[in-house]
């Protein structure tokens, strides 16, 4: 476990996942986990109307894509994500990078960087 492991967490617009996935796959990042989330940040919900009553939703639907990487450099993932996801409009989202202490593959008990190798 000499090589540091990171989790890159990308929060962005729904509907962008397919493109992101393809781009990350090209980089060699094969494993990822996606979750539906609701978020607020700079982007605000658009005023709407329910049976005549105006309101503004305070949260917007987003997706959270998490990928744990080690051999692929964090910068490369970030660059790809920025390229694919940037529209320049508010709401493009954020990327958070976290340290990871260890990784284990349940199927065969592989630990650390090897566990991230996605050859079956």
């Amino acid at each position, binding site marked *: 476990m000499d090589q540091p492991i990171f989790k890159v967490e990308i929060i962005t617009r729904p509907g962008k996942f397919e493109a992101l996935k393809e781009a990350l796959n090209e980089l060699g990042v094969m494993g990822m986990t996606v979750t539906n989330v*609701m978020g607020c940040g700079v982007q605000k919900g658009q005023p709407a*109307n*329910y*049976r*005549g*009553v105006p*309101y503004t939703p305070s*949260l917007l639907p987003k997706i959270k894509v998490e990928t744990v990487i080690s051999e692929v450099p964090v910068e490369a993932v970030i660059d790809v994500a920025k390229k694919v996801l940037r529209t320049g409009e508010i709401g493009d989202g954020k990327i958070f990078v976290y340290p990871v202490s260890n990784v284990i593959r349940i199927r065969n008990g592989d630990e650390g960087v090897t566990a991230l190798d996605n050859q079956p």
Partner: protein
Amino acid sequence: MIDYSALDTLWVLLAAGLVFFMQAGFAMVEAGFTRAKNAGNIIMKNLMDFTVGSLIYWILGFSLMFGVSNAGLIGGVNFLSTGLYEHLGLTIPKEAFLIFQTVFCATAATIVSGAMAERTKFKSYLLYSFVISAVIYPIAGHWIWGGGWLGELGFHDFAGSTVVHSLGGWAALTGAWILGPRLGKYGKDGSIHPIKGHNLTLGALGVFILWFGWFGFNGGSTLEADAVSMAHIFVTTNLAASMGAVMAMTISWTRYGKPDVSITLNGALAGLVGITAGTDIVSPLGAACIGAIAGLTVVLAIELLDQKLKVDDPVGAVSVHGICGAVGTIAVGIFATEGGLLYGGGAQLLLVQLTGVAAIALWTFATTFVLFKAIDLTIGLRVNSEEEVLGLDLKEHGTESYADFEPKVLLDTIQ
């Protein structure tokens, strides 16, 4: 017994079946327009007001409504509807008439559940439902259809814009007002937080079912299979409903910037409620006008109630049934091809119509006010706030209606 018309009977029974099916429509509309966490409770309320109502109307209500009149005020008591009821001079068996009237009674009763949805104690709702079907509706019904004073006056409420819908709507208003709004509906600062319905497709299905059933509701009220009047009623019913929807859509589009789905659905129902009183005696054009008026009225009424009066009626029952029922009944005085203001009949009928509307409104407000207050002071009318937040399905019935779906927890339980 030999003289009954099989054809008339068949029509009345089929119409009764159609009106029964409206219960499914009400259940779907009310469930669809409220939150998922209370859907089972809504279902249960709709089912039980029909079943309890069917039983008590058979046991008592029918006689109060159609028994020999005492001074035009109330029918003579007769338990289990066992009397002969020959004074009604029916061409159909008494039992056919009984079942047809039973499903009407249940319609009046069920209107309330939508307006009081998502916060009423189930037990208390059962009690309310028992009393309205046993006494409140039958007495009002007697006045108009049972040989009572309003009928004698010449009040025209063919299939019940007033006696069924307005009565249900006013009871709904009293109930919703005494209950108070759902938690989180109105902010302390006067702000209004919309609480969305959970299933628009189901709600729309309910509207289609109601419309389908309404052909029986209005058409069957002929009590005989008369070709010309049945056909006329089908046409006027359909035109008024169509116009109601078109109008409500247009108004919502103009006022709120987009054609609103749930308001348009309300508009169709408003047209149906509105035409119910005069479906037999207004022209197709008159029906379209009444539909348009109802479609306009319902949007403004919803706004008024929700935003000005702050009476929280999740499905718009008060506006659709109460207000449009009244408006439709009054419109008979204007559009009736015989006796209507526009057809040179003068104000006579109009005044009678106004009297009837006012009388039923007074009767309903007075009796349901006492009823709901009495319930509130004894067993309580409203669930506590924990029950309301977690949902009536869980707390009142120990169930969840959509066990396999992930709820939007965030929105679902915001206070």
